[in-house]
Structures are given as structure tokens and as C-alpha cells.
């Protein structure tokens, strides 16, 4: 394993320092924490929007701090949920008196720590609401699992809820928008290679030269199924059909899509996937209102991608299409 790192123990700290140096006008670090907040926050009269989770998903989460999106993001150790005390510091720092919405991805660690943080914040009379994103259609939501994971669809939750908050929505309205996106979004991913965590320094799982993992998460966990290597078109078909099956959309439905790179896959290949994705959507009678292609929610250096489809109505189109100005997303 070769990485541009010093001591693996320092990587999150040094990354955050490097981020603040890159965006000194935009980001501020809360003293003694791994939390970044808007340099000009909290924003008067606006509901605070915070997110967070393990590191290694960059530009998620702190890359989405800014006008029209997040007010704060907590960075845990690589793939490890941030701790409850840091989360509660973040919530406090992002409250302008209008309350705070926690956007949590559905992992037990994240949920348990955010829950505790919400309790701590409530004790200081901060109004806190929480939504749990679980867009990953690869995992069946049953009594026998801890539920579907939160993956790349989370970015759309940040975006839409962020736009609603920027437009002056109150906490319950912002939360309702977040939940609407969650209900209407599905994602499925694949890994061609395992990622290598700085700490372990070796691939998390072994994958043969002719194998891929389908239904991969974003934490270097193995996928739900291992298959033979396939062509880009076959892989895209597999991912997209699974997502569409889950969403069960009506003919003529407008959607927005993300082809998300896992970190180690060239942008070139993501466009190849997008080409097939759009073709399939057309065959299903769906209309693409907007499509994003790039690295939005990564898994360190993992090669692979995920396909996200979100059914949009007029409200969501307005919110997802609204201006946003963050290090990682501007429109």
C-alpha cells in the first residue's frame, strides 16, 4: 500500500487542516474537534443542517458545507462514526435558534452516536430533528438486517433540505423535504476492487482479477454478491434495473440521476456508465430531468461506482435545481 499520508493516526486531522487552508473563507474548524462548520455560520434565521460520518468518503461530508447545503459536518476516523460529544458540539455550533436537522446515514454507529448527540443537544434546549437516509437497495430491509444503508442518495438529501432551509423553511418543513427525497431515492453500487484503509494498509477484502462485488456499501465492506467481471453496459444494467425495481416508478416519471465514482475509477468510465444508464431510463419510459456524474460519495481508493435514481416532482426540481455554493458542489 502506498498513500500520500504521514502517520495513519494523523490523517483525519491533517486532511481537515488542509481543507481549511484550501477554503479559509468558507470553512472553520471547531476547536479541539474534527468538526467543520460554515465560516460565516450559524446563519441568522436559518434552520441548521448538519451531517457527518466516518472519513474516507470525500468530498462527503465537509465538501458540501456552504450556501444552500450544510452548515456543519463531523468527520469521524476513517469509516468510523464520529463520537457523540463531537456531534453535539456541531449541533450547538450550527444552531441559530431555528433548530437543527441531523442528516444521518443508516449505520448503527452513526445512528447511535447521532441519537446520543441529539439527546445532549436537547438538554441544552436546542430543537433537534433527525432523518436517517437508507437509499441502498442492495440490502433488504427486514427484521434480519439492520436496515438499508445510507449511501450516495444522501447528497440529494443534503441538497434539497439545504435549499429548503436557505429558502427560509422551518425545521419541520426542512425535515419533510429530507424525508421526501429519502422516500424517492434508490442507489446501488459495485466495487471492482477493494479499498485500502490507511490503518490496515491492505485491501479490506480480496477480489480476484475476474470478480466484482455487487451491492457494495461505502465503507469497504464486501458487497452482497460476488460475480464474474462484466462489461460496463452489463454492470450498469444490473445496478439500474435493481434500483428501478425498488422504486417502481410510473411511465413518464421525471428523475434525476447520479453516476457516482467510488474514488479510484476514472471519470472517463463514469461517463461510459452514464451513457448506458440514460439509455435504460429511456427504455423504461422515464425522463431524465438532470444527471450528475462524478465522485460525490467515495470509498477511499475503491474502484467502482454507484447508480442513484431519484424521482422528482416540481417541488424537488425547484430545490435540487436551486443555487448552491460549496467546495464540492456549485450550481
Amino acid at each position, binding site marked *: 500500500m502506498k498513500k500520500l499520508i504521514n502517520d495513519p*493516526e494523523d490523517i483525519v486531522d491533517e486532511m481537515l487542516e488542509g481543507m481549511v487552508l484550501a477554503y479559509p473563507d468558507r470553512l472553520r474548524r471547531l476547536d479541539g474537534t474534527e468538526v467543520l462548520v460554515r465560516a460565516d455560520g450559524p446563519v441568522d434565521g436559518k434552520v441548521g443542517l448538519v451531517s457527518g460520518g*466516518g472519513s474516507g468518503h470525500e468530498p462527503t461530508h465537509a465538501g458540501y458545507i456552504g450556501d444552500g447545503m450544510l452548515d456543519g459536518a463531523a468527520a*469521524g*476516523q*476513517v*469509516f*468510523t*462514526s*464520529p*463520537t*457523540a*460529544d*463531537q456531534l453535539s458540539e456541531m449541533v450547538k455550533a450550527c444552531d441559530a435558534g431555528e433548530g437543527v436537522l441531523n442528516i444521518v446515514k443508516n*449505520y*448503527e*454507529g452513526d445512528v*447511535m*452516536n447521532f441519537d*446520543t448527540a441529539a439527546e445532549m443537544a436537547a438538554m441544552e434546549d436546542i430543537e433537534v430533528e433527525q432523518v436517517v437516509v437508507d437509499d441502498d437497495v*442492495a*440490502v*433488504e430491509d427486514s*427484521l*434480519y*438486517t*439492520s436496515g438499508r*444503508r445510507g449511501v450516495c442518495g444522501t447528497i440529494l438529501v443534503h441538497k434539497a433540505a439545504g435549499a429548503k432551509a436557505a429558502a427560509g423553511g422551518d425545521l419541520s418543513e426542512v425535515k419533510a423535504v429530507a424525508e421526501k427525497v429519502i422516500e424517492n431515492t434508490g442507489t446501488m453500487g459495485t466495487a471492482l476492487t477493494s479499498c485500502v*484503509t490507511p*490503518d*490496515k494498509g491492505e485491501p*479490506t*477484502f480480496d477480489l480476484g482479477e475476474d470478480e466484482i462485488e455487487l*451491492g457494495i*456499501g461505502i*465503507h*469497504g*465492506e*464486501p458487497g*452482497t454478491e460476488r460475480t464474474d467481471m462484466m462489461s460496463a453496459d452489463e454492470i450498469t444494467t444490473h445496478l439500474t434495473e435493481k434500483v428501478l425495481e425498488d422504486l417502481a416508478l410510473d411511465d413518464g416519471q421525471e428523475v434525476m440521476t447520479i453516476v457516482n465514482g467510488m474514488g479510484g475509477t476514472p471519470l472517463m468510465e463514469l461517463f461510459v456508465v452514464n451513457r448506458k444508464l440514460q439509455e435504460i431510463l429511456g427504455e423504461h419510459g422515464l425522463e431524465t430531468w438532470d444527471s450528475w456524474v462524478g465522485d460525490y460519495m467515495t470509498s477511499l481508493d475503491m474502484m467502482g461506482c454507484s447508480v442513484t435514481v431519484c424521482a422528482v416532482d416540481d417541488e424537488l426540481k425547484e430545490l435540487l435545481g436551486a443555487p448552491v455554493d460549496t467546495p464540492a458542489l456549485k450550481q
Partner: protein
Amino acid sequence: MSDEEQREAVLMAIDRVATRMQDEKSHLTDLDSAIGDADHGANLARGFTAAAEAVEGSEDDVDEIVKKIGVTLISKVGGASGPLYGGSIMSASQTLSEEGLTAETSIAFAEAYLEKVLDRGGARVGSKTMVDALTPAVHTYKKSIEVDELPPVTALAKAVAAAERGVAFTVPIRAEKGRASFLGWRSVGHQDPGATSTLFIMQELLATAEKF
């Protein structure tokens, strides 16, 4: 045990656990690689080392020391195991506040700890989590003292043996909780990292108890 001895025992235990977690760091991470996200070793090594440092040389009562250990774990471990280990230790520390560490309070502590883990995580025996090591250990400990009237150290040794069987039990079953649950049937055949670290902690508690 005198207050002084109790404090010494707790401090020795946390030191031993911290050292053990450092030693087992890559072992635990390997287990977590197979069915999780390859961070369990780093999480616990970081957390218990910080916890040991946080209470080093403390003159507090044992319940305060144990609480401090829990609080430190909460703020240093993160992930799923942070709130489970840290939160449950913190919460269970209350059982030691009146009488310190006795045979009775140690049972109360173990029960409170198990309850909190079940509460917070929602796992049950057979979910392929730390609960599978913890439950037989706590049940055996309690029964050995209360019914079989064995001395606490002997009871603890039996509890460790029970935990060992719990760890082995996690191998052939399918995960229902934690990241391993995402794997579905593919989780079968792998040993749960959290159950394993629970066993290691208990082994260090036993080694400590044997010195007193």
C-alpha cells in the same frame, strides 16, 4: 477489598485491556475486514488506550473511574462499538456507586451492562454480535455465584469459558445486526469482531482478578 485495592484492581484491569487491544489490533481489524469495514481493532486500541490514560493515577472512587472510562470510550471510539462499549460502561458504573466493587455489585454491573447493550443496539442472542459473547458470560457469572456459590474469581473463569463458546457460536450463523448484516448469508462462516473483543476484555478482567 479495600477502597484502595478496588481502585488498584480497576486501574490494572483497564491497563491490561488497553495493552491487549493494542496487541490484538490487527487481529480484530482482520476479523472486521471479512464482514465489516476493517476498523474494529483501530477503534478499540485508540479508545482503550485513551481510557487508560484518562484514569491513570486517579484517586477517585471506582464508580467514578469506571464512568470516566465509559465517557472516554464514547468520545474516542466512534462507530458502533463506541456507544455500545462506552455508553454501557458509563451507564453500568452507577451500580458501583454505593458499595464499590463487591461480588453482588459485580453481578449488578454485568447485568446492567448487558441490558444497556441490548437496549441501545437492538441485537439479541444469535444476531452475531458482541451480545453472543456477553450473554452467556453474564448468565454464567451470575448463576455461578448466586446458585453454585462459587467464589467470584472462579465464577469469572467460568464466564470467560462461556464467552469463548459464544464467540465460536458467532461463526456459523448469519448476522442480523451491524455491518455484517449487509452481507446476508455471506456473513456465515466468519467470527464476529465485537464478540471477540468482548472475550479479550473478559480475559483481562480475569487475569486481573486472579492477582487480587
